């Protein structure tokens, strides 16, 4: 039974240990998961910011890409094909008039074939009431473009002009990007570099196109928005040439000499092809890059060809506005528990860094954890509960196992006691029976030769029968007590009288062992007691004294009675070897015997003192054992009066 219990306990122990280890590992995984989830939250926000910024850029570039090339003129005549018939064609002021920043674009300009710079705000330059700050900005734009961009564009412009229809290639500069940590996630925004490669081809009215060129050729001319356009034929094919000297001069200035004669000879009526190329980024170190997150100023430039005329149109990408847009997206999309900072490089304090890569420049989006201890607190909180729960489980299992072991041990002990009891009862029944049978057979077969021998056999038969009777009485009494069937009849009587009678019954047994019983009985007034129980108490105590009282110092057993407070005390004293102190409590347990079964000197099944204990309790009394003087043991039974 214990082997199975050991295996079961080991299995349960291992299961609990495995559960504890798995739980701990799960806790660790959960912690890692929380960090991962948190990081995933940052990554998701970064991705959303990336998408948002890309959408903004896409919208912006789409707007700029589809911007009519005429918007780059301060004024232009609308194409007659697009006007309603009969409507007076008035000059239209450029929608870019009045300020330089338009979304992410700043300072739209166009480069004419002769290298001159024209902006939609050129009309302001000669105006007396012009905003001086704005004029200064326009001049600044023109100066920077002229100084840094035109030298790059001019050769290809001249080449394209010389080759007539060939579209010039725009020089794209590569810029070394600042290094960022490899931990930072790179989010590429290709909007600025993935322009459609195909040019837009428009069939425009030649006269209007040229008129617009000529009209805007004089930057100093101040034209109001409601000025009437020069006289032009309302419809094609009339063959009317109406070109003023001023217009002709302007055109000459615009068109290179190589083509002038041809152009002048050409009928300016009819359609003209306008090709508008895609916007291409050009990164320049123009002195304004210090304010930018990029290494240079980003110019978006497109090629425009009006008939034979080659132009470049473009604007500078406003890096500060771009940053402001990113900032706006981040502020809108970042969680409440997140901070952020845009920079050139990853910040050490950043919980998550994403690089918004525009191809020609990068912005590092540093997302900051405003509550970095949150996960730690959650983990500690759950760990605490986990350890409390595991402790409770461990305690429960330990208590369960302890109870099981205790139960098993009790079962084992009970089984052992039962076996011991059966063995003892078997021995105690068989031995007197064997004695009786030997004596009876000797007598029956006539193998006894003398009278003395015959008397001795009869005497032995009686002793053995009494021994059997006591044993059976004890077993039955104990069984009745165990089953709760024992009934006590407390009848008032003289206890000394009863004790004397019992002593006389036991005297032959004692004498057979060479012992004498002496009584020292005090005067005890009658009190109620169970006669059978008291008889059993004294018989068992005397039986014990006879069994364990040898070798005796004076071969004497003393039976006393006396009164003490509310109790009547019955004492049985022997002068044998006594009872070891360690055994004085155990001897009252059922089936307990002082000596080992195989080598014990005494008879009995270990019930005598257990019965004395229970009978004493039935009289609301007690039983105790002490050392006698000078040697031996004295048992005292107290009975409440």
């Amino acid at each position, binding site marked *: 039974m214990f082997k199975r219990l050991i295996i079961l306990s080991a299995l349960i122990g291992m299961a609990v240990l495995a559960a504890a280890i798995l739980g701990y590992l799960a806790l660790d995984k959960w912690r890692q998961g929380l960090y991962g989830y948190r990081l995933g939250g940052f990554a998701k926000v970064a991705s959303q910011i990336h998408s948002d910024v890309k959408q903004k850029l896409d919208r912006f570039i789409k707007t700029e890409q589809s911007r009519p090339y005429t918007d780059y003129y301060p004024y232009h005549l609308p194409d007659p094909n697009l006007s309603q018939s009969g409507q007076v064609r008035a000059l239209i002021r450029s929608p870019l008039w009045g300020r330089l920043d338009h979304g992410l674009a700043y300072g739209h300009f166009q480069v004419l074939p002769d290298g001159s710079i024209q902006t939609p705000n050129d009309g302001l330059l000669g105006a007396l009431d012009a905003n001086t700050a704005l004029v200064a900005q326009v001049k600044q734009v023109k100066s920077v473009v002229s100084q840094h961009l035109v030298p790059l564009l001019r050769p290809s412009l001249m080449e394209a002009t010389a080759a007539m229809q060939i579209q010039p290639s725009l020089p794209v500069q590569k810029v070394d990007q600042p290094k960022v940590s490899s931990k930072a996630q790179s989010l590429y925004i290709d909007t600025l570099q993935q322009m459609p490669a195909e040019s837009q081809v428009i069939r425009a009215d030649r006269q209007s196109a040229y008129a617009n060129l000529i009209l805007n050729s004089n930057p100093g001319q101040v034209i109001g928005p409601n000025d009437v356009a020069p006289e032009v034929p309302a419809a094609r094919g009339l063959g009317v040439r109406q070109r003023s000297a001023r217009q002709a001069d302007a055109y000459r200035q615009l068109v290179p000499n190589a083509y002038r004669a041809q152009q002048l000879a050409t009928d300016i009526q009819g359609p003209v092809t306008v090709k508008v190329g895609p916007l291409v980024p050009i990164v320049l170190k123009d002195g304004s890059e210090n304010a930018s997150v990029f290494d240079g100023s980003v110019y978006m430039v497109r090629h425009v060809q009006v008939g034979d005329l080659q132009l470049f149109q473009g604007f500078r990408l406003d890096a500060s506005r771009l940053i402001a847009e990113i900032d706006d997206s981040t502020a809108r999309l970042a969680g409440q528990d997140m901070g952020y900072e845009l920079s050139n490089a990853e910040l050490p304090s950043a919980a998550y860094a994403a690089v918004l890569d525009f191809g020609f420049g990068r912005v590092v989006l540093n997302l900051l954890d405003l509550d970095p201890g949150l996960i730690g607190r959650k983990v500690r909180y759950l760990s605490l509960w986990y350890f409390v729960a595991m402790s409770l489980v461990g305690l429960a299992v330990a208590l369960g196992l302890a109870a099981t072991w205790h139960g098993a041990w009790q079962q084992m002990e009970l089984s052992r006691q039962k076996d011991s009891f059966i*063995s003892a009862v*078997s*021995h105690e*029944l*068989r*031995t*007197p*029976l*064997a*004695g*009786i*049978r*030997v*004596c009876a*057979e*000797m007598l029956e*077969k006539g*193998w*006894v*030769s003398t009278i003395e*021998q015959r008397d*001795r*056999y009869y005497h*032995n038969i009686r*002793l*053995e029968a009494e021994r059997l009777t006591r044993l059976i009485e004890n077993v039955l009494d104990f069984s009745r007590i165990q089953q709760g069937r024992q009934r006590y009849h407390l009848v008032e009587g003289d206890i000394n009288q009863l004790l004397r009678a019992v002593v006389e019954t036991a005297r032959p047994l004692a004498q*057979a062992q060479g012992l004498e019983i002496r009584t020292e009985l005090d005067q005890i007034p009658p009190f109620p007691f169970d006669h059978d129980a008291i008889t059993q108490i004294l018989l068992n105590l005397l039986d014990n004294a006879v069994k364990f009282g040898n070798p005796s110092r004076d071969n004497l057993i003393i039976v006393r009675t006396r009164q003490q407070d509310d109790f009547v005390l019955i004492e049985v004293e022997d002068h044998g070897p006594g009872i070891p102190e360690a055994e004085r409590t155990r001897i009252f347990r059922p089936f307990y015997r002082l000596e080992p*079964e*195989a*080598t*014990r*000197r005494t008879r009995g099944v270990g019930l005598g003192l257990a019965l004395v204990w229970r009978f004493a309790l039935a009289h609301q009394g007690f039983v105790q054992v002490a050392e006698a003087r000078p040697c031996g043991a004295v048992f005292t039974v107290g009975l409440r009066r």
Partner: protein
Amino acid sequence: MAQPLSILVVEDDQTIREGLADFLRLHGFAVTVAPEGPKAMELVEGRRFDVILLDLMLPGVSGEQLCVQWRQKGIVTPIIMVTAKGLEHQRIAGLEIGADDYITKPFSLEELLARIKAVLRRIDPNRSVGQKFGIGPWEIDLSVLKACAFGKEVALTPTEGHILQYFAANPNRIISRQELYERVWHDQITDIGTRTMDMHIANLRSKLAIESAEPLPIVTIRGAGYMYKARS
């Protein structure tokens, strides 16, 4: 002449002990009693018994311990366990540690006597050769105490007959003088006993010597005893 068989009764219960002693004495046994283990140990180490009746639950030293110790010391005296332990495993255990028989209390005295006799018969090696047996060229008949070979007939004494019977029952084995003396004379060997035994062996050799024939195949093993060399 052989003495009465001696029996040791080891029993702590006085009634049984006295009854058994009376009964066995009445049936011709020399009875010695021991009420506890140490006393029994002392008696067995001091002298030889033909049978031991052994109770198991004994004060001092248990019957099982006594049995084991005696067998370990080479004491081959038949032991009959007489005990209240009647369960099968207890009987088996008793027999396995060296008991020759096992009887549980309460028992019949006549049954006990029959078992004692049976054990004595069982352990008597002469039973294996019977009253008529051969040893070397000689045919021995103990019923008429005669040995015959090559038409010659020789008269034997009962002791000589028992010596030859013991040798015939234990061929090709060294038999010590002590063992031979205990088995034939049923007593502890002494110097006188040794000389008596050697004289009997010498007498047998001269009686059964035949010219031009093989000698009696009982040889002396120096320092050990005798051996009957039987033909394989």
